[in-house]
């Protein structure tokens, strides 16, 4: 008998609009646990909005969202998140390790300095992303790609069961991108990984299903598809999605 796979994230008839402009319409889908999922779609199609709804940073104008069977706000401690843009003061004096340690907030740390275990977990997260040697460097001196890796490490430091990454490969080169997706692929054996990406063909080697967002949402499994068929198939798939949304 197959083990029942629980659904970690459930969207039911979710609608969302910014100041009256609809961003998402009647969105229903689920994300099962221990999968690697990519959210794709055109710019301003609602990818980041989808993540922010999962985190409870935005409230849906209609429908219901459940994460771990709870409201998104209550599920936050179990979610690791890497934002696409950081609204950070470019001169902010903070070291790489300081940033990663912020992932440990909310894990029982309330008063006073971080504990030894917090530092150990944060350093391990940095090691995974090959940023361990940079732990004492100022965050402001890093390149865009290095910053993104530090922010992924920060998300990992909170030991999440659900990892949400918004465009983690936006400013890294191909080699780093491949490594990163292999790492995420390995992690998806124990936790659920959701990656927002604009890069269709490449991601599909690793992910199990693709959530296409353009005001409406469609989920495509990729398990049956292999090899070079992917790129061709995805090209046509994307066209189909766009066509459907034009209405």
């Amino acid at each position: 008998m197959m083990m029942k796979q629980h659904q970690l994230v459930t969207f039911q008839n979710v609608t969302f609009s910014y100041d009256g402009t609809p961003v998402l319409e009647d969105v229903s889908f689920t994300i099962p646990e221990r999968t690697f999922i990519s959210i794709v779609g055109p710019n301003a199609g609602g990818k980041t909005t989808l993540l922010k709804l999962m985190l409870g940073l935005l409230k849906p104008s209609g429908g219901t969202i459940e994460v771990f069977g709870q409201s998104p706000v209550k599920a936050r401690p179990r979610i690791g998140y890497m934002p696409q843009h950081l609204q950070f003061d470019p001169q902010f004096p903070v070291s790489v390790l300081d940033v990663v340690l912020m992932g440990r907030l909310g894990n029982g740390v309330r008063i006073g300095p971080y504990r030894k275990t917090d530092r150990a977990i944060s350093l391990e997260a940095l090691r995974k992303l090959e940023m361990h040697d940079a732990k004492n460097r100022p965050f402001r001196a890093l390149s865009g790609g290095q910053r993104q890796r530090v922010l992924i490490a920060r998300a990992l430091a909170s030991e999440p069961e659900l990892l949400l990454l918004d465009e983690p490969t936006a400013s890294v080169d191909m080699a780093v991108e491949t490594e990163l997706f292999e790492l995420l692929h390995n992690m998806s054996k124990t936790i659920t990984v959701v990656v927002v990406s604009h890069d269709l063909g490449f991601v599909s080697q690793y992910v199990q299903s693709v959530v296409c967002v353009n005001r409406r949402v469609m989920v495509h499994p990729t398990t049956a598809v292999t090899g070079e068929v992917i790129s061709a198939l995805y090209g046509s798939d994307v066209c189909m999605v766009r066509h459907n949304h034009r209405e």
Partner: protein
Amino acid sequence: MGAFLSDLPRYPFLQYALITGVLASIACGIIGSYVVTKRISYIAGSIAHTVLGGLGAARYFQTVYHWEWFHPLYGAIFAALISAVIIGLVSMRAKQREDTVIGSLWAVGMATGILFIYKTPGYNEDLMSYLFGSILMVSPQDLWMIAGLDILVVITVVLFYNQFLALCFDEEYARLRGVHVEFYYLALLCLTALTVVLLVTVVGIVMVIALITLPAAVAGELTKRLQHMMALSTVLTVLFTTAGLAVSYGPDLPAGATTIIIAGTTYLLVVSGLRVFRLLR
């Protein structure tokens, strides 16, 4: 300079002034680093100006209704905390109108103070000294109060350093990690308010905004972590206030204004010096 050093052992008021500068520098260096990195120096400026309203009201009630216990400094603390809470709530609830409220409070606070001072019978010129600083008029009682506020600021920041750091660096992420962002933001503004009251004694209402930002800005250029920025900023503030006192004493210049000129010149030299240094490298 020589006059200051030879008079220092003889006159208690000079010693009090020196200790006030050192004590105020601790809170100023720590909170100033938050103010600069969180970019809320205009909020600090607004809180500083509402302090005049508190000072004026306290003196009015002291004189007219004989509330002897209502020392002007209590009025200052009260007004600063109230305005910090108002600005905090407005900026959290209605982000787009934040600057309007900050500006209005700035002016209304001053206006309130001026009206109270005008209607208070007797001699009240000394209240006006709060505008430009009165470090040479600090009493031993004031010193105790400054020390108390200092301890409060230091203990709070030591206990909640990580939360404040996360709040200033990345508010959204702090919220996601379960940090009560609203609470810590209000707490930070209240600590800023208390620090502003300390600094009003040293450099006066009008120049608080400079002393809270300039040392922190210099320190921020030279350090890589927030805690180091705080330490260096504190040391710099001690140097600036002490130098301001020492330099102004002999030629009988206003100490507050002298302190600010020294701080501003240092900032200019450090920032331009670093730019030149980086260009040449």
